[in-house]
């Protein structure tokens, strides 16, 4: 009886699936090796643009100038990164509304993106609004 059943099985036109597992495991290994289950971290900022002329006219907004490894707040107050953090925390931007939340950030000379990014993140985390100040751009 058993033999008879076996014979019947062999005569059927079955798709050979014995090597399917091997193929699946090859694909699996490929995906395991190439997948990066990375979490994207960062911050979202809706940046209002300003020019240097506009910056000069708005006296109320605190300004941070990044230039050649230095951080200057206001007119001529040089700070380190931790000092800037304390300064921004001291502004209590989370309690302010509208334009009072704006912090003008401008960069001059050699400023690596790391410094710029850290400053932007700092203002953003303090519930401030970052305004990037760029050189005057002539729009045609």
């Amino acid at each position, binding site marked *: 009886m058993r033999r008879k059943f076996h014979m019947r099985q062999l005569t059927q036109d079955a798709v050979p699936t014995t090597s399917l597992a091997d193929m699946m495991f090859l694909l699996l290994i490929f995906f*395991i090796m190439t997948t990066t289950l990375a979490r994207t971290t960062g911050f979202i900022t809706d940046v209002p643009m300003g020019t240097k002329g506009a910056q000069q006219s708005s006296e109320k907004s605190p300004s941070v100038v990044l230039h050649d490894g230095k951080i200057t707040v206001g007119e001529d107050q040089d700070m380190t990164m931790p000092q800037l953090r304390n300064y921004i925390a001291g502004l209590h931007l989370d309690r302010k509304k509208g334009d009072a939340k704006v912090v003008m950030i401008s960069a001059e000379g050699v*400023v690596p993106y790391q410094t710029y990014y850290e400053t932007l993140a700092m203002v953003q985390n303090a519930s401030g609004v970052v305004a990037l100040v760029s050189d005057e751009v002539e729009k045609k």
Partner: protein
Amino acid sequence: MIRRPKHEMPIIPTANLVDIAILLIIFYMACSNFLSVTGKLTPPKAPDLYKIEEPLITVSVDQEGAIMLQGHAAANAAEVEAVLSELLKDKTAEDSKKRMVMFKCDATVNRQVYQPVLDAIVHAGGLILAVGDNREK
């Protein structure tokens, strides 16, 4: 003469192994995110960054200063602005999610390279989603 009992080799059922493998492949295919950035890029670090959902539009600047828009090389910031303006033209101010532009930039790149690109994103009406790595305080 002692009769030894016959030891039959145990059989591990492997018929369902394929199904499990297929399920795992589907999982990895669904979770995979092939990198569109071609150049070398070390993101900047800052504390208190939060998890963000990746938007559809990506602009990146690698350590050589090469600008990439949606995985394709862009000649300069003006080209980025032109293409982004086209991509974002139908997006209203209320569609903040659709206006998001992911900005990836190498930490060592100088301001002459990244600032015009940031300006271009803002001028095109994009919301900057600045990507970085979380760092402890």
